[in-house]
């Protein structure tokens, strides 16, 4: 009887799974128990009470109001936002640069193709940390002092303290217009989705889709701006004392990390894009060319849309790598989540388990969100087959 069960493949599969799960649970239980016992023996308190204690240290860049009297909870949010900022900047620019380089590498222009090839081979084969140091120490720290700033039209300034840009300042009415734009953008995305569904079901697109979209995106903000009597002025940075006041300030730490992440990841994205483009059959290009389409059009209208479904999964990997690599910020003191929370905050509170767990949870959440969004996009561009 037992022997027969043992030889039954279905039963055997169940048995192995039960065994494996018990082992994992047993091991997990032992780890938790062991940790709790040790913490108790050493008299370390557990829990998240430390988050409301005053932090007592400053942070050089914060997207929200922050000073050292605020709590560790605030340092967490500041670090998180800084991580999101540099990741978002990195992803956008790495995508643009990567696509450009990937297409260039396949160009029939010998020089362009070789430049792209050299770019890819150089930047993907040098450690990222070294590249961050390169931008931070070799490029940005040899820039002139604020008084000798390099400037463009006396509006944009570049010096050893970073980059200074004019900042648009809206009053209350202006802010309503900004929100109106956000609403218009959401509505437009909704319309596009609706159009896709309708087209699939009935074969007929929504009438005047492009006109409606343009009207929403431009008209709605303009009209609300006018109705709310909004105003907008530019806060232009100006020299004051030894530094610059006003405008948007981009610290050298942010710039170095942003450039390094962009250039490094773009090299990988270029390869992803190249392989995606090469995966589209030659016949597609020939058919498009035979119809009289120019090479650029063939690329944009026929090849890239088909290459996207091959490109997206590995592109998602590159995005996730970029986000996780942004934690190298610590090396040059950019105040990202790892630096201010898993670094300074951990040192000051000693709540290693809680801090590390929170930090890990954050990276997990960001990464899973990104990959979910990319999967949605992938389904969107997937080919319809019988």
């Amino acid at each position: 009887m037992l022997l027969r069960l043992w030889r039954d493949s279905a039963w055997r599969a169940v048995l192995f799974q039960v065994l494996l799960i018990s082992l994992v649970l047993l091991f997990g239980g032992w780890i938790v128990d062991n940790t709790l016992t040790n913490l108790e023996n050493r008299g370390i308190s557990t829990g998240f009470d430390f988050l409301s204690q005053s932090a007592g240290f400053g942070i050089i860049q914060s997207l929200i109001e922050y000073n050292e009297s605020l709590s560790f909870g605030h340092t967490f949010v500041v670090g998180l936002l800084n991580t999101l900022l540099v990741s978002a900047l990195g992803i956008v620019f790495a995508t643009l640069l990567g696509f450009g380089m990937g297409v260039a590498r396949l160009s029939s222009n010998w020089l362009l193709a070789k430049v792209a090839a050299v770019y890819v081979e150089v930047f993907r084969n040098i450690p990222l940390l070294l590249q961050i140091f390169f931008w931070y120490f070799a490029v940005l720290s040899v820039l002139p002092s604020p008084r000798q700033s390099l400037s463009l039209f006396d509006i944009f300034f570049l010096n050893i303290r970073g980059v200074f840009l004019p900042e648009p300042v809206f009053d209350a009415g202006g802010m309503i217009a900004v929100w109106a734009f956000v609403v218009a953008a959401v509505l437009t995305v909704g319309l596009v989705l609706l159009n896709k569904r309708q087209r699939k079901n009935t074969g007929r697109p929504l009438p005047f889709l492009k006109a409606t979209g343009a009207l929403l995106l431009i008209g709605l903000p303009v009209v609300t701006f006018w109705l709310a009597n909004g105003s907008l002025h530019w806060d232009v940075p100006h020299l004051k004392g030894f530094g610059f006041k006003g405008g948007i300030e981009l610290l050298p730490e942010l710039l170095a990390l942003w450039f390094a992440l962009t250039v490094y990841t773009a090299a990988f994205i270029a390869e992803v894009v190249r392989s995606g483009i090469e995966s589209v059959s030659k016949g597609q290009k020939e058919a498009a060319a035979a119809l009289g389409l120019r090479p650029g059009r063939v690329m944009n209208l026929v090849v890239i849309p088909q290459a996207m479904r091959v490109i997206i999964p590995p592109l998602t990997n590159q995005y996730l790598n970029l986000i996780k690599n942004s934690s190298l910020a610590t090396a040059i003191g950019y105040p990202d989540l790892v630096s201010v929370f898993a670094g300074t905050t951990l040192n000051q509170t000693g709540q290693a388990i809680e801090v590390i767990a929170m930090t890990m949870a954050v990276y997990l959440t960001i990464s899973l969100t990104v990959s979910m969004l990319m999967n949605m996009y992938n389904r969107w561009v997937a080919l319809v087959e019988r």
Partner: protein
Amino acid sequence: MLNINNNKDALAPVIDVSQVNKWYGQFHVLKDINLKVMRGEKIVICGPSGSGKSTLIRCINALEEHQQGDIVVDGTELTRDLKNIETIRREVGMVFQQFNLFPHLTVLENCTLAPIWVKKENRVEAEKTAMALLERVKIPEQADKYPGQLSGGQQQRVAIARSLCMNPEVMLFDEPTSALDPEMIKEVLDVMIELANEGMTMICVTHEMGFARTVADRMIFMDDGQIIEEGPPETFFNNPASERTQQFLGQILSH
């Protein structure tokens, strides 16, 4: 149709291939090819695989580059001049063995892509023309489906309609039925025969000898990069002059 180009002469050949040679590295694929195609003429090219027949018609719309000789299409000489290549590709439609429909676009979008982007037609106009042509190849009801949802025969008919949307002077067919299941070959050939009856200038590389007998004005047999024999279908099938033609016909007509 209004003719602005002075070079266009009803009596001049619409395609004039003279002394064309082409090599793939060391391999001499086309050897001294001469071919004149008159307006409205239907030519069927056959020959064993590797004989250079596909390469020849692919040279006519510059999908392949020839190294020696001249190709003139409807008064435009095929050089490396991109403008000329563009002009020629507008005048010459091509249908491929593997259909090569764009899988990310619907049938209708496949048909309107080139008219909109190359001829700058407006979308409504282009869609109207496309629907009329889909009607002609008898699949207007599939207009909003994607190529992946169609059978091979339907896809090939869409491919023909897609080429016709550019209103070409000449149609090139590169083994249009070779990738099809037997029961679908007829629906594609029927469309091609209809097209031939309407007076389209056609060059077809095919092994469909029934089709060749029905529509061809002239048969061409190629082997080893050369035109071995050409002539009207009756003589070609009944009294082939060359031994190699006889052998080839014997092989493909024996069953």
